[in-house]
């Protein structure tokens, strides 16, 4: 159930995509998202699908993994689809009761759903091929020019690292507490909504206590190793751009240019 969320779940591999510099991958993802909003017809979407399919093929992450990330937001996609389908005025195609489906609505519904799906798959590709730690390293490095403007780049990245690092720990903790309470006869599945909300108390109270305990222990362990924020801190693995990163950068620019050209020219 909670384990189905792919976000932040790294799929181990050694592919070309996995080895790219995290900064390049973050920029590429942002460019990809921007390009999805540049596209205004199905040809644009088709190019975006092609580009994504190529990168997925290179990354060798099974497609089923990508689709798993869609499950939690399936309802949102459906909602967008239905809303567009019935709400856009235009040439009427069919009438069902008080609802009308227009040609423009049908077009928009598919277009928006496709855009949403690509958005999710595109961004989960980033988290699937990048270790959470290198991801936050990348974000820190990308944000550091803004430090002069008062953006606490290191602190933000550290918070993100810790949050990501502890998602599995807290999931495990939740699983353990749920099992322990189930062993004491707790029932989380039956009853009305109030009953079910109440049945969460035996999970939430111990979970909060655990979370605070873990946070305190972590803070202590960090201080014991002389952590005092980002200042003067050096890295064990300094990030360095390599040939493949520049190749990826060029491909990315070509892709974005192609998308813009498609919009202006066609």
């Amino acid at each position, binding site marked *: 159930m909670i384990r189905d969320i792919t976000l932040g779940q790294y799929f181990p591999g050694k592919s070309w995509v996995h080895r790219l510099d995290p900064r390049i991958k973050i920029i590429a993802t942002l460019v990809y998202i921007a390009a999805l909003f540049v596209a205004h017809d199905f040809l644009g979407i088709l190019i975006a699908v092609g580009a994504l399919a190529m990168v997925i093929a290179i990354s060798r992450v099974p497609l089923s993994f990508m689709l798993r990330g869609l499950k939690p937001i399936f309802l949102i996609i459906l909602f967008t689809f239905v809303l567009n389908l019935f709400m856009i005025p235009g040439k009427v195609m069919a009438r069902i009761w008080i609802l009308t489906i227009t040609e423009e609505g049908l077009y928009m519904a598919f277009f928006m759903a496709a855009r949403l799906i690509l958005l999710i798959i595109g961004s989960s590709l980033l988290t699937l091929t990048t270790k959470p730690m290198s991801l936050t390293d990348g974000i820190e490095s990308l944000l550091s020019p803004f430090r002069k403007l008062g953006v606490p780049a290191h602190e933000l990245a550290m918070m993100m690292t810790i949050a990501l690092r502890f998602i599995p720990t807290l999931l495990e903790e939740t699983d353990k507490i749920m099992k322990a*309470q189930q062993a*004491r*006869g707790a029932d989380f599945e039956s009853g009305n909504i109030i009953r079910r909300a109440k049945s969460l108390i035996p999970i939430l109270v111990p979970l909060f206590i655990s979370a605070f305990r873990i946070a305190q222990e972590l803070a202590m362990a960090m201080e014991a190793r002389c952590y005092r924020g980002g200042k003067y801190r050096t890295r064990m693995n300094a990030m360095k751009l390599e040939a493949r990163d520049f190749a990826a950068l060029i491909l990315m620019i070509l892709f974005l240019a192609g998308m813009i050209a498609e919009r202006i020219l066609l």
Partner: protein
Amino acid sequence: MSIQVNNITHIYSEGLPHQSIALDDVSFCAEDGQFIGIIGHTGSGKSTLVQHLNGLLKPKSGSILVSGTDITAPEVVMRDIRRKIGLVFQYPEYQLFEETVEKDVAFGPANLGLDEVEIQARVKEAIELVGLDYEEIRKRSPFDLSGGQKRRVAIAGVIAMKPEVLILDEPTAGLDPRAHRDVLTMIETVHAHENNIIFLVSHNMNDIARLSDKILVMDGGRLALQGSPHEVFSREETLISLGLSLPEPAKLINMARQKGIPAEGTVLTVEDAEEALYQFLKKD
């Protein structure tokens, strides 16, 4: 009451790149009133195994018969199984959540749908069985107690459900020697009082050797050895190769034997060792 486990296999994260076989073709049985020790190094599948016994995990294949009913069958009502089989997890104090000790211990019995009078009686009995002062502790917050007391309250929460089978997963982990002894004495008292089947997972060979009627030795998800303490602890080389060891008294007598002191029989407990050395000295 009897438990029969037939060829169960369990795989974690099946189909993912990091899948691992947690249990591999495990079979054993447990009879009424037996005290069963489970040993094995960390990650050998002990915790996975005990979670199968009350249906928290389902095996991929194989069956678990509890008094003849297969609890792996889909139509089985899990509530009935968990009423009969109580499981105390590792570090059970982390499951405490209520405002008072009394309410926390009552959580299990209340889930069984018992009436108020019965719940009260069971809570009192359970708190006293784990060696705490009922009147003194009932209204206190479980979070204000010491580590050993918290652990005992958590165990009381399971005992109050009066399970016919009580499974304890490393109940003494992280306790000081005195709390360790108290918890074990408490388990013995409960066992004598309820005459239930007890499964004790532990890394402490001395406890296992002293208390168990039967020992299961896990290694890499397989049942490497099973038998009486005498049978299991006579296989010193096998145990050492599995990352385990003999109880301290047995080690002592083995050392004595190497020094040329003849001592008869298998020695498991301090009393055995004392007797063996006494016999030797008497002959002198």
